[in-house]
């Protein structure tokens, strides 16, 4: 009856290997729009200004300000922020669809900002691909030709790219619609075409720019599940832009929260909910069902004298919701154990504080 540690699933399916070198490494990235934009990142004084002050002083808008992060191989890295926070500009800077103003973007050891146009095109053709909010499909081409468009650009022969496109069309669940035109498909299906087009070139990294924002909630959920499934199947590194926190928590291994072009916090979902960096993040995560996100690590307490230490054991990364039954069913507090070390204990009171809310909480 007592489940052991192994039987409770961990929240994240992909193992995170913290030792591996990052695929993408972004340092001090700036994007400033406006006249003589390049002086802004160089000037310490201008860097210190708020967005509004900068606009008044120089007529420039800083869309991305001094952002840095690493994306590990196979990771789903989510950038989240409200509209105008600079997240779409950020993702476009990563592939230089928008030219960054300053900083480094190192991809597999190469600074993308140094790539000449030919090298950049080559990277875009083979290493990256992107899924767009408004799909960006070609209305005059059938699904299969839309999917094969990137391969055509590379110069692949017609027979070969049709074969490859067909494979990917089946992978994203569009079999039977190969010869339809985009305007004959629903929004969700059109985005599947966009997804297939991005996958067709077998890139190392997929960029998603709010891909599901234009879709209905139910379809959005389907598509999110589709992305999770594809991530399991093909294991690509993904950088995912969204303004929807629940989407971020559902998909992201790690989440970067942006506000006014600056990064506010970067961490796993439970870190954001358990230890928000400031009031902005706290306000953001307020309505998140904490039990779904927080793990036992966040709620355990040190054992005190008189605590019975003969209860069941659970790992520290078990999500509260999944530990609830075990804890409530046990007569004594549950021990949180990692590699044989006792980290703390979790009793009914701790669980209820998360699930039902602490007394005095709203």
């Amino acid at each position, binding site marked *: 009856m007592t489940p052991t540690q192994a039987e409770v699933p961990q929240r994240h399916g992909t193992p995170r290997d913290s030792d591996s070198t990052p695929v993408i490494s972004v340092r001090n990235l700036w994007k400033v729009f406006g006249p003589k934009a390049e002086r802004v990142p160089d000037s310490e004084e201008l860097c210190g200004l708020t967005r509004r002050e900068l606009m008044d002083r120089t007529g420039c808008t800083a869309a991305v300000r001094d952002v840095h992060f690493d994306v590990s191989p196979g990771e789903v890295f989510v950038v989240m922020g409200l509209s105008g926070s600079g997240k779409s500009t950020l993702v476009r800077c990563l*592939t230089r*669809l928008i030219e960054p103003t300053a900083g480094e973007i190192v991809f597999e050891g190469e600074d993308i900002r140094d790539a000449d146009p030919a090298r950049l095109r080559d990277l875009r053709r083979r290493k990256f691909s*992107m899924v767009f909010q408004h799909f*960006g499909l070609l209305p005059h081409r059938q699904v299969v030709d839309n999917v094969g468009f*990137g391969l055509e650009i590379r110069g692949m022969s017609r027979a070969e790219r049709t074969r490859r496109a067909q494979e990917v069309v089946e992978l994203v669940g569009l079999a039977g619609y190969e010869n339809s035109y985009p305007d004959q498909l629903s929004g969700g299906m059109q985005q599947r075409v966009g997804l297939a*087009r991005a996958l067709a070139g077998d890139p190392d990294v997929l960029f998603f720019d709010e891909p599901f924002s234009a879709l209905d909630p139910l379809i959005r959920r389907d598509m999110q599940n589709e992305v999770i499934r594809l991530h399991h199947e093909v294991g690509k590194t993904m950088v995912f832009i969204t303004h929807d926190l629940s989407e971020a928590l559902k998909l992201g291994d790690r989440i970067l929260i942006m506000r006014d072009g600056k990064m506010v916090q970067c961490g796993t979902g439970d870190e954001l909910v358990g230890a928000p960096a400031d009031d902005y993040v706290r306000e953001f995560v307020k309505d998140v069902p904490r039990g779904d996100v927080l793990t036992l690590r966040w709620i355990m307490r040190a054992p005190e004298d008189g605590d019975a230490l003969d209860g069941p054991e659970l790992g520290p990364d078990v999500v509260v919701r999944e530990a609830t039954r075990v804890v409530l069913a046990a007569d004594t507090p549950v021990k949180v154990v990692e590699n044989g070390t006792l980290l703390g204990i979790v009793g009914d009171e701790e669980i209820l504080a998360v699930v039902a809310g602490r007394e005095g909480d709203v």
Partner: protein
Amino acid sequence: MTVVMEKPERTGAEEPAAPARSVRRVGRPVLVAAILAGWLVLFAVLRGRQTLSLAAADLTDLHRWFNDVNDSIGANRDSNPLFLYFFNEIRLVIDTLVTFVQELISQPSADRPLPQIGWLGVVGIAGYVSWAVGNWRVALLAVAGFTFLGLQGLWQESMDTLALTLSAVLVALLFAIPLGVWAGLSDRVNRIVTPFLDFMQTMPTFVYLAPLTLFFLIGGASATIATVIYAAPPAIRITAHAIRSVPETTVEAAESLGATRRQALLKVLLPMSKRTVVMGVNQSIMAALAMVTIAALIDAPGLGKTVVQALQSLDVGTAFNAGLSIVVLAIVLDRVTTAASVREETARRSKGRFRTWRRPLLGAGAVIAVVLAYLSHTYVWAAEFPGEGSVGSSVASAADTTTTWVQDNLSGLTNAVRDALTNGLLNPFQSLLTDSPWWLVGAVLIALGTVLGGRRAGVTTAVCVGLLVGTGLWSDAMTTLASTLVATVLVMLFGVVVGVWMGRSALVDRLIRPTLDAAQVMPPFVYLVPFLALFGATRFTAIVAAVVYAAPVAIKIIADGVRNVPATTVEAATAAGCNTWQLITKVQLPMARGALTLATNQGLIYVLSMVVVGGLVGAGALGYDVVAGFSQGQLYGKGLAAGLAIVLLGVMFDRITQAAARRAGA
């Protein structure tokens, strides 16, 4: 004009200081009324003084100088290097092209008494091409239409018009599409090109002719070049628009997949804008047809010439017959190119069998067309249109009979309408404009321009007034101005009544819109013919033709404006208990104010071009000066100055109403 005087809402930004703002807000309609009242008072006192009138045969120094320039160009045409190596070369190339196409379908070529391809071949090819780019319905229309041209006894004239139109469109597109793509890709090019295109499209067809004859002589080459210049702007503009309206995401997606600029252009931008570009080709062809018919004034061959000659001898029957041919040609060309622009979509929808059969069918059709062309090349029966054009003569005599009947039976009515409007509205207004001292009218125009359009419009008006005086044709310009304004008021009356009706009822819109669309593709010329029959050769004929010519565009703009009033606003007003009249006057018209001003702008421009053409049927003034300039050497300079005066009027109207529209719109 009444519309522009409505008090536009504040849009801010332009006005510098707040106090000036509040003064103007209160004052605009009052100010306009005050200006007009002051004018009337001064008119009563100063009537007939300093009117700058100029008799028909009199010339000013400027006109004589133009004549001298013309003479010296004529004398040095074959020695001046600029002409020898530039203008003459262009003329030669264009001439060669036009002659080639003419010998193909309309004119006897060197060793043959007949063109290379006779009527059967042309009809066959027209049908085949229409079917290939459009559908079988327009192919039938093309075959029927072309055959009808032959039955009218105007085969050769029609083919001349077609030959000129097609060569001009070919040359125009050769420049226009690349330029349009460039303007679509580059913001800078677009910024440079747009004002030129705006300017070129505001000008009546007429004014292109005079300066071109200076460089390219009177004849087919000048006509074709004028047509090229007139037909290019819509194609440039629409191509640029098509490229620009490709969604940014799509271009970005192609870029993110590593497409080169060339790949993005060829695989994304061009295919996605194809349909719109074909619409540009349609506009271009219609503009070319309009110009080719008018170019008859500078001796372009074809249907236009038949109409002009008939109009000058007041032979309504012949003019009507030839006008009908132009209409038929216009309908065929318009329908076929429109069908071509929608074919892409429909072909995509029709799946399966038909598509697999299309290729072999196209091949078979091509073979048939070639056989027909061969037959018409070889046998006289297939080359020369059979019959005497009996349909044409019966059309002409029917038109004559109708005219006579109308003149016998309805002259009371038509004359009453004519005289009422002429004496009640036109004459007083015209004498107000022409009999006031020039400085008074000029001051009034500048004041009105400033009040309605803002300071910059006022400055433009001042410059235009100054230059108008300089042309030496002030009095004629004022006569044209009077006709134009009267016609525009009538256009706006029609426009508001029918436009509101259409805007409020989808059914009425569906019924009326096709007629308006058809009316808009007609060359302005053909409108003169029926009204000539009704009202004789007077100013009034030109005004009525102008109203009919300009009304469709005004109606459509107003209807769209009324339709675009948000449904929720109308709903809210209805919920508040508005009756229909209140709904129209308090909600729909005020909210469509931008559309009303735009309609006034377009109405003025269209009316001006027609009033000027009316010079052919007795409207006199600037239009007559231009026409006379083509036919009489010593009046050439005056005609050129008149063309300039028309341009100035056009610019003045356009600037004031555009500025007013910007204020009202927003």
